[in-house]
Every structure is written in structure tokens, then in C-alpha cells.
């Protein structure tokens, strides 16, 4: 399943010009406001007249101007979730989820279960919280069994606390529905958490495209990353230690990590570990007598000055897992850190979130 885009769309200040083949899975689209991100999504959904070129999803052309093909939005089977959720105010939650003309009952039920909105079905959108609305909007899009999912800053309208609550649903949709998905966001942390591929747009052009970590390594340290989560690690639950108040997780790369007791995650369940770069403690000698449950030896790959902070890119021994740590320039000087030098990284169990 891939998405081929070769698109031009004249906009007031510049022309949107995107030529990319997107791999399966989630592609994050980043870029400043007015870069054409929403216009790109609307063109893919068929909501923009004047879009020319070719869009091929899963082998079928949604648009092929050269051959006179331009499917109307209702024939594209593209699920679109706008920033403000765009729920129909005159319909109940169930009415919204069922709205899609191809929505068959099984898809509706599956979407309701994935997003766990069954208790909300009789409510009107006006009575829902922001996070609930976004979940309903996602369910509504999924219920049509789309071939492509377009998410336009689905978390932007939510405050940081709610964002953390909705992000896991997005990851769940990604994992359970296996759809190609374009995800517009301002937030590097979200992109790192959700995407396998990243595009950055500027003035209607693709500025860069590629692997999230390679591409966002530098960006992640800019101001844009303020509420982001820089370190993400996939793994599974190994055991729960009730008395010790910890849950043990082993990453796919073989790293053992202790997190705060999370009995709701069954043993063997896949989880993603999320740690902010500023929550990683850095030492230049083996650490002893520290309360942090997770201490790893590694070495520094690079040191980057990023704004007022410094971001260290470190590789752990022997797994080679990369971890980003954010510290002050003063700390770099005091510890005498240099690329290639050895470090010990400590992470408190409380600083690790499971998503």
C-alpha cells in the first residue's frame, strides 16, 4: 500500500508543489503555518478545485489530470479529520459515526471499539470534551473504511494534558487499522511518536523527506520541540513487581527498562516507552547510589547547540539504542563532554511514560 503524489495547486502567495511517494504507515507533515499543509490534505480529499497532477492510492488513481481523471470526494474513500474535529452538530455521536455512506455495521462497531466511544454514543457533539470530539471524528472517518487517512493537526486544539490522552488512540488506530495516513502537525514529539516517515513543507514545497529521527534530530532540539517527546522505544511488558511498584519492560532492541507499576498493561503486551530529552540525566562516571532505576552505559555520538540548550545524541552499549538528552551548556563544560566520550545515562521510572 503506497500513496503516490504528484500535485500542483495554485495558492494566493505561492503554488503548492508536492511530488512524493509515501510508504505505508504514518507520514508526518511538518512545517510552519501557511506552508500549504492543510491545502495538501484538502487536495488529496478532493475538496480543492484547481488541484492538478496525479494522486494514486493503492494502485487506483484519485486524480490524473493528464488522463482526465478527477474522482469526486465521495468516491475517493479518503478519511479526513480536521483540526476542530468537524462533527455534525445536529447529529448524535452515533449519528456522526454512522454518517458515512459506505459505513457498514461492522466497520462502525470496530471504529467505536477502537476509540472506546461506546459510552458517548447518545451524546450531542456540543456536550463532548475536546479529546472526546477528536476520538469521535477519528471513529467517523474509520467507519467508512477509508483507503487513506488524513489527519489535520488532530491534537492541536487540545491542551498538553489532553494531547497525552488522545495520542495513544492515534497510535492504536495506526496499529489496528494499518492504513496509510498523513498526519499534519506542528509538534515534533507527535511526529516522532507516530510516524515512520516525515515530510517538511515550506512555502508549498517539500523541504525534506525521510526517516523521522534522521530528519528531526536537529529540529527536535529547536523551540518547536517544546512539548515533544524525543525518546521513543518499542517493547513489551515482561513482568509486574507489585511490592517494588515497578513494571519491567524489554525493548525490541533488548534494553531492560523499569517503569512505574502499570498493571493495566498485561504481560507480553506491546508498549511504547516515551521519555523527554530533558528527563535524561547524564554522568561521566559509573553511577552508584542513585535512586533512578534505569542506568545505562553508552557513548556520545554528537553534541549540538540548540537554542539555549545542548542536545546530546548518545548510543547505549551494547544495544546501540540512540537516546537524546538535553542539558545546559554549563553542564557540558563542567563535565567536559565531547563526541565519542563515555557517558552513563540515568532515567527515573517516573519520567517514563507508556503509550
Amino acid at each position: 500500500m503506497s500513496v503516490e503524489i504528484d500535485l500542483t495547486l495554485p495558492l494566493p502567495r505561492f503554488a503548492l508543489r508536492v511530488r512524493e511517494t509515501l510508504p505505508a504507515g504514518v507520514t508526518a507533515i511538518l512545517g510552519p503555518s501557511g506552508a500549504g499543509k492543510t491545502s495538501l490534505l484538502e487536495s488529496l480529499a478532493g475538496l480543492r478545485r484547481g488541484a492538478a497532477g496525479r494522486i494514486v492510492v493503492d494502485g487506483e488513481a484519485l486524480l490524473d489530470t493528464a488522463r482526465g481523471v478527477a474522482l469526486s470526494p465521495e468516491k475517493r474513500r479518503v478519511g479526513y479529520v480536521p483540526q476542530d474535529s468537524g462533527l455534525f452538530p445536529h447529529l448524535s455521536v452515533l449519528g456522526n459515526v454512522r454518517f458515512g455512506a459506505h459505513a457498514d455495521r461492522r466497520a462502525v462497531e470496530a471504529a467505536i471499539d477502537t476509540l472506546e466511544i461506546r459510552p458517548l454514543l447518545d451524546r450531542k457533539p456540543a456536550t463532548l470534551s475536546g479529546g472526546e470530539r477528536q476520538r469521535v471524528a477519528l471513529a467517523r472517518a474509520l467507519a467508512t473504511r477509508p483507503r487513506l487517512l488524513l489527519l489535520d493537526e488532530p491534537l492541536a486544539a487540545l491542551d498538553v494534558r489532553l494531547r497525552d490522552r488522545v495520542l495513544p488512540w492515534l497510535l492504536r488506530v495506526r496499529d489496528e487499522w494499518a492504513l496509510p495516513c498523513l498526519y499534519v502537525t506542528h509538534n515534533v514529539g507527535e511526529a516522532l511518536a507516530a510516524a515512520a516517515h516525515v515530510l517538511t513543507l515550506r512555502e508549498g514545497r517539500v523541504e525534506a523527506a525521510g526517516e523521522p529521527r534522521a530528519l528531526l534530530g536537529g529540529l527536535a532540539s529547536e523551540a518547536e520541540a517544546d512539548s515533544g517527546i524525543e525518546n521513543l522505544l518499542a517493547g513489551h511488558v515482561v513482568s509486574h513487581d507489585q511490592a517494588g511498584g515497578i513494571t519491567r519492560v524489554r525493548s525490541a532492541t533488548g534494553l531492560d527498562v523499569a517503569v512505574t507499576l502499570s498493571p493495566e498493561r498485561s504481560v507480553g503486551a506491546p508498549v511504547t516507552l516515551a521519555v523527554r530529552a530533558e528527563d535524561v540525566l547524564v554522568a561521566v562516571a559509573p553511577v552508584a547510589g542513585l535512586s533512578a532505576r534505569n542506568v545505562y552505559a553508552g557513548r556520545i555520538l554528537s553534541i549540538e547547540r540548540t537554542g539555549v540548550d545542548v542536545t546530546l545524541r548518545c548510543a547505549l552499549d551494547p544495544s546501540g539504542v540512540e537516546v537524546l538528552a538535553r542539558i545546559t551548556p554549563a553542564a557540558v563544560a563542567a563535565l567536559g563532554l565531547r563526541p565519542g566520550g563515555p557517558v552513563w545515562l540515568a532515567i527515573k521510572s517516573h519520567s517514563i511514560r507508556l503509550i
Partner: protein
Amino acid sequence: MGADELRIVLFTLQMAATATLVVLVPGVAAAFLLAGYRGPGKTALETLLTLPLVLPPTAVGLLLLELLGRNRPVGGWLADHGIEVVFTWKAVVLATAVMSFPLLVRSARTAFEEVDPRLVGLARTLGCGPAAAFFRVSLPLAWRGVVAGTVLAFSRALGEFGATIMLAGNIPGRTQTLALAIFHDTQVGRDARAATLAAVTVALAFGTLWLTEWLFRRRARTEGA
């Protein structure tokens, strides 16, 4: 109020209801198209459609008469096909419909303009064609304006005078509505009857508007919005 007066009241209600039915579909369609239309001549078109609101009704009636008189192109063609309009109940319906049309269009157009076009776009991405999107999103979201416009059109039709008297005359038992009967009664000195009929028009108009307000309130409560 005797049988005669009751007949006038029923006839008036019948004419107003028919006129409202006649303008409902074209009026809502015109309102919807105008709300979405962004091309050249939009203002000219809107002005043209509003014109009957501000013109003297007698002038509108005269225009219609010019169009539909037996010796005129449209009227002649209709007469050839056995359709008499002028000085019949059809003329009453036509005159009141023309006068009511702009009220419906204005009210409904505003309501359609307030529907977020992105919701319509979303309905399209969810599999609705343009017609389905209209009936499932635009119309339900604009229904207040459409109902309000319909009620206004109906009320206007109940009281229409100028255009009706020009096109349909004032023939008791054939084209005489409440408004025409009141005028006629005062002319011939039947002031008491005129007063009675006037009171009936007030009651009718009040009842119609009150019912609408009540409906809106009830609906707003159950919608919880």
C-alpha cells in the same frame, strides 16, 4: 362571523398555503444556490430577487398583468392552452407567491450562508454526493432559517393586497381574500364587518408567528444546544 366571512377566511388560508407551497422548493433552491454562488453578478442577482420587497405591490401586480394579460405573449400562450390566470384564484396564488418569494429566500439564504462549508466538504469525504450532503447537512443545519422564511412568506401571503388586486381583481366568492374584503367593506360602509375581518387577520398572523416561536424554543431545548 357568518358563513360568508368564514368562507373568506378559509379561502385566504387556502391561497396563502398554496402560494407558500409553490415558492417553497424554488425559494429554498434559490437561497442555497445564492449562498454558495461566488461568481460575477451575485449582487445584481440578489438585488433583483429582493426587488418585490421594496416595490409598491401594485407595481408588481401591474408587471404581472403585463406579462399574463390575454393579449400578452405569456398570457396569450397560456390562454391558447386553456389556462386562464388573470382574475381567477390562480392569479391570487401567483401574486401572493411573487410577493412572498423574496422573504423566504432572504431568510433561508442567511441560514445557508451560516453553515460551515467545511462540514459540507466533510460530508462529501464521508461518501455523500452533493444532493445527499444538502439534505443531510446543509438543510438540517439551516432549518431554522428555512422555517422562519416559510412562516414569513406564509404571513406575507395572508395579508397580500396590492399585487393581488391588480392581477386577480376583487371578486367576492372568486378572488376576494381577507385583505381585499376589508378594503371593500370600508369602501361600502360595512365598518363592523371590516373590523371583524381585521381582527381575524391579527389573530391568524399572531397565531402563526407564535407557533413558530414556540416550535423553535421547544426544538432548542430538546437539542440541548
